[in-house]
């Protein structure tokens, strides 16, 4: 079959060569004649009333072309969106304030106050220093538990710091605990972490010959053209986004970054304007992954069967709402993990504080949930003196089961406990070391994570495919490529259906006006959504070709296939029509060899947020990770020796790309577990560079062993499931469980730094 020619093949990505030669122009590699340089003037205080902004000195500096404040922004306050075509309402959209306004509160250090465009970067920097800002300092509130209390300092203009509350109730939680033979309780603290992509935020804007605003930017969401148009009070079709290849995003380039700023400056000066964040600016002013405080209580029978699970989450949303509501909902739905539990009660509160705002990050809220429930599973195993894998086997969902939180029945294959067993097996025998101070431990964790957006967002993706007269293919998609090979995959799918070799496909991509909108590269949705859109578009052309070729070859269309540029009769491949000939015949008969197709996800209504029930996601990916660590009990230093990552990927459309996600996700998780903490004290970021914010290097990273289960049961093309975010799940609790196995101490607050391990060991020894 034609599919087997390209699907499942580890073909190199189409963008790979431009990346190794250095030819690829990322957002900050692109310049235009007469270009101005932008800088942002930001708040130096985390909580204050903005009294006045005096720009006169900055404006009079030679070489400065524009200085803008909130007064210059046509619509300074709109709502935050991330590509959805309609407002969901119900508290899901937050305030998007472009620049701080006089007479209103500043909410975090780094909040933008004014913008400068100048003839050089140095002049723009100097101008920023000349802007005089009067503040009235306010106390602020930095701890989410304090911010929730009545009478707490109010971060914003509303009369409560609580952004949203979510809940899930199944069965009767009180009865469940009464019936339980053992009950365990624990509390976990999870910090803010940073995406730490290597490419800082960057973009350039200019006006074309007709006054249309063009923005070339590194973004996961080109649909922000609408949001920028709203800010500028322009019709949507007067703002065009051209997305670049992204130098890493992980959710951090899902919200608007530089775009509104350069757009405003270009409209003011009529000049191209470029803005590139410094690393410090990037680290201290883009969103963070939500910090969580989690209280868990689990009741079980002595045979290991869990009868009740209660969880209370407090999420630190930072200063502005952004994607906080969605993250809270993800966490709530994921809170009982992949376990069958008859009595469940989940409560999630997302709270504003005067810290940098939190928003999207690979895994959304489900990693925080996963850290909690998978730590609890090992605690339960210990309490019952059972094997950690066994306790999971007793309680985990099997194919056909429903989530214990929402009751959503999973209609695809559930690769549990299979994935956990395979990951555990893959670890092999524990390493034996002679050093008495080094303790070896092994741990496992499993979980579920959605792929595709929440169904009440009513998601869709479009793709255009066309066959040229010489047999080459043109593909157009508005898909942003995060580095996961998103664009190349669409080419692979369409080429496979039409028997075109991959090198004859040219993809045009990520243009909000010229390529069909494919939706955001977020939520592990592109393989599923845009993959299906590309497949649908290609199939329409395929059918047109097969029907016409059948006439020529005098067979039925279903007796034909397209393989290696030939339309062949399946039972006798010596009978064929060259693809170029089929194209010629179609063109001369007026048969369309182009198609733009739309794929829609399942659509649902907005659930009752106090008790979320039914379908909230199209489907879930299931998997597990197993880890071996060596803990030095004298220094507390943890070294991860082995990682095995096992996932049901449905179908590995490009195995190299899937492995790449699984390897990269594991190592990003290693950082989350052991070193990464975007620490903020009284609103002041403590880790403004990679000297303080420590991500794994090659020396910290073991070779990740990947095991792919291909159940074929996914909702993506050819049965694929999404794996981008799921691959980042499980790894943190697997490491914590391995540390526990090695030392007998449970780490309740990540990252599991040497200091925390030593302190926990001392506490344990005093018992």
């Amino acid at each position, binding site marked *: 079959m034609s599919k087997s020619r390209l699907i499942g093949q580890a073909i190199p990505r189409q963008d*790979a060569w431009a*990346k*190794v030669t250095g030819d690829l122009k990322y957002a900050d590699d692109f310049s235009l004649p007469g270009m101005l340089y932008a800088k942002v003037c930001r708040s130096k205080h985390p909580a204050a009333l903005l009294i006045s902004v005096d720009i006169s000195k900055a404006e009079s500096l030679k070489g400065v072309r524009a200085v803008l404040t909130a007064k210059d922004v046509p619509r300074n306050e709109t709502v935050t969106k991330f590509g959805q075509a309609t407002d969901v309402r119900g508290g899901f959209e937050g305030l998007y304030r472009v620049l701080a306004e006089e007479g209103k509160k500043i909410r975090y250090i780094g909040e933008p106050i004014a913008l400068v465009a100048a003839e050089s970067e140095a002049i723009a920097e100097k101008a920023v220093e000349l802007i005089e800002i009067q503040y009235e300092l306010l106390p602020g509130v930095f701890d989410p538990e304090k911010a929730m209390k009545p009478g707490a300092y109010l971060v914003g203009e509303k009369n409560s710091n609580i952004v949203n509350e979510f809940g899930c109730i199944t069965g009767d939680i009180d009865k469940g605990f009464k019936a339980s033979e053992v009950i365990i309780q624990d509390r976990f603290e999870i910090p803010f972490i940073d995406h730490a992509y*290597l490419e800082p935020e960057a973009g350039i804007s200019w006006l074309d010959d007709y006054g249309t605003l063009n923005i070339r930017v590194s973004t996961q969401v080109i649909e922000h053209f609408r949001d920028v148009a709203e800010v500028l009070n322009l019709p949507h079709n007067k703002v065009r986004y051209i997305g670049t290849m992204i*130098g890493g995003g992980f959710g951090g380039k899902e919200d608007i970054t530089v775009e509104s700023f350069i757009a405003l400056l270009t409209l003011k000066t009529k000049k191209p304007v470029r803005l*590139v964040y410094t690393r410090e600016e990037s680290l201290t002013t883009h969103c963070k992954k939500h910090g969580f405080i989690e209280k868990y209580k689990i009741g079980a029978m002595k045979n290991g069967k869990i009868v009740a699970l209660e969880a209370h989450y407090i999420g630190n949303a930072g200063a502005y709402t952004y994607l906080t509501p969605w993250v809270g909902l993800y966490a709530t739905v994921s809170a009982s993990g992949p376990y069958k539990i008859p009595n469940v009660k989940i409560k999630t509160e997302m709270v504003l504080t005067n810290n940098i705002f939190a928003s999207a990050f690979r895994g959304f809220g489900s990693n925080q949930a996963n850290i909690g429930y998978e730590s609890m599973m090992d605690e339960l195993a210990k309490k019952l003196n059972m094997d950690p894998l066994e306790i999971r086997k007793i309680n985990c969902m099997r194919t056909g089961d429903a989530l214990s939180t929402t009751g959503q029945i999973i209609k695809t294959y559930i690769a549990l406990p299979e994935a956990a067993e395979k990951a555990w097996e893959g670890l092999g025998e524990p390493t034996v070391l002679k050093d008495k101070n080094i303790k070896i431990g092994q741990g496992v964790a499993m979980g579920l994570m959605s792929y595709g957006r929440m169904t009440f967002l009513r998601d869709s993706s479009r793709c255009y495919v066309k066959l040229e007269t010489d047999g080459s293919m043109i593909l157009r998609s508005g898909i942003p490529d995060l580095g996961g090979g998103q664009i190349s995959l669409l080419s692979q799918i369409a080429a496979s259906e039409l028997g075109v070799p991959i090198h004859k496909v040219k993809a045009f991509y990520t243009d909000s006006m010229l390529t069909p909108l494919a939706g955001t590269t977020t939520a592990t949705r592109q393989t599923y959504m845009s993959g299906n859109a590309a497949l649908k578009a290609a199939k329409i052309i395929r059918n047109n070709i097969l029907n016409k070729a059948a006439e020529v070859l005098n067979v039925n269309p279903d007796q034909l296939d397209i393989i290696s540029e030939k339309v062949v009769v399946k039972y006798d491949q010596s009978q064929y029509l060259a693809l170029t000939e089929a194209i010629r015949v179609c063109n001369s008969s007026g048969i369309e060899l182009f198609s733009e197709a739309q794929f829609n996800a399942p659509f649902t209504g907005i659930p009752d947020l106090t008790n979320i029930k039914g379908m909230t996601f199209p489907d879930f990916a299931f998997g597990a990770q197993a880890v071996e660590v060596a803990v030095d009990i004298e220094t507390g230093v943890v070294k991860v020796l082995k990682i095995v990552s096992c996932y049901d990927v449905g179908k590995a459309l490009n195995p190299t790309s899937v492995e790449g996600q699984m390897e*990269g996700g594991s190592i990003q998780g290693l950082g989350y577990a052991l070193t990464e903490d975007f620490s903020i004290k009284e609103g002041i970021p403590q880790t403004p560079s990679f000297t303080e914010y420590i991500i794994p290097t090659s020396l910290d990273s073991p070779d990740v062993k990947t095991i792919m289960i291909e159940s074929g049961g996914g909702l993506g093309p050819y049965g694929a499931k999404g794996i981008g975010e799921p691959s980042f799940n499980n790894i943190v609790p697997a490491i914590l469980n391995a540390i526990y196995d090695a030392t007998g101490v449970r780490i309740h607050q990540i990252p599991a730094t040497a200091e925390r391990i030593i302190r926990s060991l001392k506490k344990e020894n005093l018992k």
Partner: protein
Amino acid sequence: MEEYPLKITVNGKKINAMVYPEQSLLKFLRSKGFTEVKCGCEKGDCGICTVLMNGQTIKSCITLAIQANGKEILTAKSLEETEIGRKLQESFVNHGAIQCGFCTTGMLMAAKGYLDKKPVPDKEEIKKAISGILCRCTGYKKIIEAIYDVAVENYRMEGNGHV
């Protein structure tokens, strides 16, 4: 502030320019169109701006342009001029050692610096050779394998036996 004359060879091409003493080699190279040298932090933390200066890997963001006076700089654009460079590029492509690609040119130059020393192929040594460069996407495994394969091939071609 006074500008100083700079004579520098980049990828075999001689360049004469005037530079401010505080200008970094990174900013100088990018201003001359060598945008294959990426800017990630300007503090020497991330290493993606790595180039070769007289055969040594250096971080161009914490090297002053004037320090490169009279020296030879090689960026990723030079790779296609050498067999090792071409092999490295091909190996990175075929191994899927590239995701977002933002660290790739720096990684390639560190790999080139390592291979130019004609080492006995050793994955631990490769890990050390690239340890100054951060990659957030790949987890490093495929990068290490890509370099290792070229190292093994080179080692054999130098007349050595199997590794």
